[in-house]
């Protein structure tokens, strides 16, 4: 499974995970293999051994495998790192970056609720309340749509849950500077940084006795 994830072979990855499930390999072990493989993908990308094309394919393979495994996961068996509600902001339909972030967050043990693309601010808040999210993550690739991230901040304040969640933004048109400007708690430049930032945000939230 590790090889198929590293090479981004989603068909092979699917076959190997089904084989592993049939052989009664523990879910925890399967999830650990996925997490380690995706960590390796991240390292290879940072070392410039891998390209964005590789990330997209490995991300798609991880997504495939997690899709097969998810129905078998018993919540009491797994201790999630945190709950993340994620989406591409209203007016923006790009989903490649978000898909990679989801694959990485899943692999890192987060429980991720994907709202899809073109998501209004109110939907983020609704879902965050429903699943008691630790993090609300939003992505924007268009310069014309990044203002919607500010709407999410305002909507969380209006709903009275801004201090119960951390917000994380990413996408080609935003920056750490923009995150500060709109009051977001974190910014990640790529899917791998998103995992590190998400872990740090959850730690901050827990240490102050939040959600």
């Amino acid at each position: 499974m590790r090889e198929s994830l590293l090479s981004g072979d989603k068909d092979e990855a699917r076959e190997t995970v089904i084989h592993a499930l049939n052989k009664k390999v523990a879910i925890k072990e399967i999830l650990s293999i996925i997490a380690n493989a995706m960590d390796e993908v991240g390292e290879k990308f940072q070392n410039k051994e891998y390209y964005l094309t590789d990330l997209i394919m490995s991300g798609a393979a991880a997504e495939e495998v997690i899709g097969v495994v998810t129905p078998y996961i018993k919540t009491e068996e797994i201790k999630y790192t945190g709950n993340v509600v994620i989406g591409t902001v209203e007016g923006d339909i790009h989903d490649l970056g978000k898909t990679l972030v989801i694959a990485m967050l899943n692999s890192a043990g987060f429980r991720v609720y994907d709202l899809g693309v073109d998501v209004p601010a109110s939907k983020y808040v609704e879902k965050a309340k429903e699943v008691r999210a630790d993090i609300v993550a939003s992505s924007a690739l268009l310069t014309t749509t990044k203002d919607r991230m500010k709407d999410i901040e305002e909507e969380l304040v209006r709903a009275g849950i801004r201090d119960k969640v951390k917000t994380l933004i990413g996408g080609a048109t935003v920056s750490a500077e923009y995150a500060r400007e709109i009051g977001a708690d974190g910014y990640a430049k790529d899917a791998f940084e998103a995992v590190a930032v998400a872990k740090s945000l959850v730690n901050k939230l827990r240490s102050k006795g939040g959600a």
Partner: protein
Amino acid sequence: MPWEYFNPLPHLSKYTSFEQLLSKKDKEEIDNLCKKIREMWTSEPMKPIERLVGSIMGMEIDRVPCTVFGPMFKTLREIGGNFIDYYKNPVLNIKTALLTILKYNLEVGAAYNPIDMNQSDVFGTKWEFLENSLPKVTEWAVKEGFREIIEKDLPDPRKSEALKWQIETTNFLNKKLGDLNSFAFVYAVGPYYMYNSCLRGPKHGFYDIKKNPELAVKAFDKLHDYIVDLLRYLMEKTNTPSWTLVDSLTSPSFTPPHWYEKFCAPYQKRLVEDLAPAPGTIAGGGQGQTDFTPLLDRFAEMGFTGFMFGPPTDLRKMKKISDEKGIYIMHWAVPAPMMRYGTPQQIEAYVKECIKIAAPRKRYMLGSDLADHDTPDENVHIIKQSVLKYGKYPLQFE
């Protein structure tokens, strides 16, 4: 099974020319805008087209040509337009383009460009228009993989409704202002780009290539011929002197080198060769803030006569190759974050430095990355003002 044609602009089907779309009021408004632009473009010693062509050829010119990319989205918002109208209504699109040229004193015009629809509508990729965003693909034309391209007869690009309106608006603007400027094309092409971005989608597209590299080559060979046919037709219909062929997917951070050499470079080279008899410049370019420095020598070898890149691609290296091989540089110099967050003083200093590095011996046009709708106006205006201050020949640095 033939390709299922998808017409993204059915409301325009009954019209055959751009003029037919114009009401009396539209005509007056557009004439008035063109008159003002004409005054603006004739207020300096050289017309924009003379300056641009002179710069491309390395001839004597009065100053560095300059334009900012993308403030049309600022204008669109200011006039209360939305993206649905912008893409579905060529009249609004042209008015927005003209108002933007006037407001920001731009020197390079852009005609109606319905992004990738004009390459994929005849194949049946389906699009949906959104109020606050670019058109969205709702269904890809290629469902299974390369065999569809290899086994089916490809459609006729001339039947593209989106292409028709691109040609119509370009010719309209060239008729109005073509003696002063050229409404040039920036065109995202290449079989690798077309398959992954217009016909199949990147997630499945990349996987298809990985699984069947030899089939990919066969399919790309066929798509290449289709693209050449499409571009020759556009060139013939619009008589456009300068072309920029962009493929953002070939960025060295995006595509592994062995894929680039097998699936991208051969077609880029063939494209330049096949289009060589066409007049003017064919520039190779890349979108986004990605570093094309490792590929600059390859682009030069392939016979591109222009570079169109921005930071972090190394300007000094572009300049070195430009000097050695006579390649023209269209530089997307000022990055979007600098325009959005920088001060006018920072932008002025940056523009001055770019001119100092690249403008001696001409063959350099200074532009910018996409100007966000929230980029302060003064940060857009300072770019042109700085070019007027530091970019007049002979340069004060020479």
